[in-house]
């Protein structure tokens, strides 16, 4: 009950947020944050809860974006069918790629996903009559549902807010359900989990497919909001950015993706002050933040929470225990 009240407060605050910010630029940044929250959730599921280090999530983001772009420009389908097709493509891609590669352990899986992301980008770049090649696909229509066009930053904000809220609910219920415990068991000790009778391979593949589906949905939104997709929006660097979001936000924590997306997106905007120095500062800041946020922002919030309730029990240390994932 208490959880739902706080969720409701959060929802109300988020709903009135765009009214506080009259600047359309700030609204755009809020939209970017929401898209990155979706992507953060997708990476958190597979990395934070299953422990598979993915450096190829941008590939699925791209698959979703390209699917939506191709379907809407070539077949003229409207927004919702596009999102659905993207989700299906993302899910299929997750299954096809997950079944062989999820057997790989630790860094090997990460390397396989880097290779995969590169392959997908090369396909985007070279399958010209479908993907438009290097210049991509432009002129993707704005999202529209039942004749309502989402063509301003504020309208897009509400569209994204509702979608992110739904995805977040799904994700929250998933990780707090029995299945969430199974996922954590697989992450923390695969051997023990399989000894308990869990089909760990199946759990991993299913979670990867869910995660890639969310990434692909985010891609569909991206295509309809920016009206343009090109291969260089989905490189491995982008996958690394997703991972940075989740690591800074707190991997394996429910609210990790939100904190991370807010910090990384806003950080990049602040850095525009510094012209050609901005990337140098960005790199150094990442290194420093990682030093001081050993379990992400969510970890600090958890510790603060624990202190707040004066329940400094080992229980919390365990929950903050990304260390224990090692």
């Amino acid at each position, binding site marked *: 009950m208490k959880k739902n009240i706080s969720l409701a407060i959060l929802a109300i605050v988020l709903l009135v947020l765009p009214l506080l910010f009259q600047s359309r630029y700030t609204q755009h940044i809020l939209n970017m944050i929401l898209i990155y929250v979706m992507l953060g959730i997708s990476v958190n599921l597979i990395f934070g809860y299953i422990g598979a280090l993915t450096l190829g999530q941008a590939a699925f983001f791209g698959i979703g974006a390209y699917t939506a772009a191709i379907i809407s420009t070539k077949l003229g389908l409207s927004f919702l069918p596009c999102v659905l097709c993207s989700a299906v493509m993302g899910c299929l891609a997750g299954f096809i790629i997950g079944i062989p590669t999820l057997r790989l352990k630790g860094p*090997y899986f*990460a390397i396989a996903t880097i290779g995969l992301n590169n392959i997908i980008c*090369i396909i985007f770049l070279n399958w010209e009559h479908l993907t438009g090649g290097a210049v991509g696909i432009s002129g993707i229509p704005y999202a529209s549902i039942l004749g309502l066009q989402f063509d301003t930053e504020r309208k897009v904000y509400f569209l994204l807010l509702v979608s992110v809220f739904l995805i977040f609910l799904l994700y929250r219920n998933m990780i707090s359900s029995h299945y969430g415990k199974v996922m954590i068991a697989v992450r923390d000790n695969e051997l023990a989990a399989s000894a308990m009778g869990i089909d760990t391979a199946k759990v991993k593949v299913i979670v990867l497919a869910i995660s890639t589906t969310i990434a692909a949905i985010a891609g569909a939104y991206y295509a309809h909001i920016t009206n343009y997709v090109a291969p260089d929006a989905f490189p491995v660097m982008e996958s690394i950015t997703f991972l940075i979001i989740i690591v800074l936000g707190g991997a394996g924590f429910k609210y990790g993706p939100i904190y991370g997306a807010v910090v990384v997106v806003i950080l990049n905007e602040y850095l525009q002050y510094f012209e050609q120095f901005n990337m140098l500062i960005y*790199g150094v800041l990442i290194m420093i933040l990682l*030093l001081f946020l*050993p379990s992400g922002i969510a970890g600090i919030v958890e510790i603060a929470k624990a202190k707040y309730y004066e329940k400094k029990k080992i229980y919390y240390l365990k929950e903050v225990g990304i260390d224990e994932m090692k």
Partner: protein
Amino acid sequence: MITSLLSQQIISGIAIGSIYALIALSFSLTVRALNVIHFAQGEFFMLGAFGAISCYMLLGLPFWLAIIITTLVVAALGIALQWVFYNKLWKSHHVFLLMSTQGTAIALANGAMLIWGPDAWRFPKIFSENVYKIGGLTIPEEMLWISFFAILIMIGFNIFLYQTKYGMGFRAAAQDRETAQLMGVNLAVADSFVFGSSAGLGAIGGLLIAPILFITPYIGPIFTIKGFTAAILGGLGSIQGAIFGGFLLGIIENIVTFWISSTYKDAIVFLILILVLLIKPSGLLQKKTIEKV
């Protein structure tokens, strides 16, 4: 005709492969000892080349001195990064270390851009530009030199690791840090050795290729990705494997470009990489080792 074309591709592949081998070697060091993929490896390479440019072209020092200074400075940088940033992350999940090296890569590349500018640099030739023609095959001499140095460095490392006491200690530390420490291995020194030598080795690689390739501040990531592809093909963490993988990658790239498609060359290379990971994750060269449970 076909055989001579094929052998020409193989020779050209070995030529570029010698460069890949050098990076793969520095990659393998950090992976074998610390189980860390060091994303900034290509940046050390780039710094080595720029160090040579600064010392040799801008300060006018003799080449041998430029090599020594650059290698030492870059190795010191690697060690400094380890002490300031990586040591503390050691206890956390390895993704922190991975992301930290990625932050390092971004910072180094952009720092270099601010110092040396975004334009490309060319280092004066130190190797002869001769080209040998043997039976219709073209063999550039400078590539022979690089292959020679790559193999020399490999032999040097092998001697150090397998013939000396400290090398044995570092190998032990790579397998079981805690127990190695109990035996008296100073882990801090061992880690610094790994980070320092892999950075320094990267720098030497950069120095060697500076006269052949052109150097820009953003050259790093390409070498990073080629380096670890090569390292995996040969067997992640194995020193001979790294050299072998480097040459193999060069040959595969050339043959694929020549006979299949230059457009999909990289895609095919990555596909081979994934297949190797799936079928023989210990690399093409290594014997399958029994995994410790």
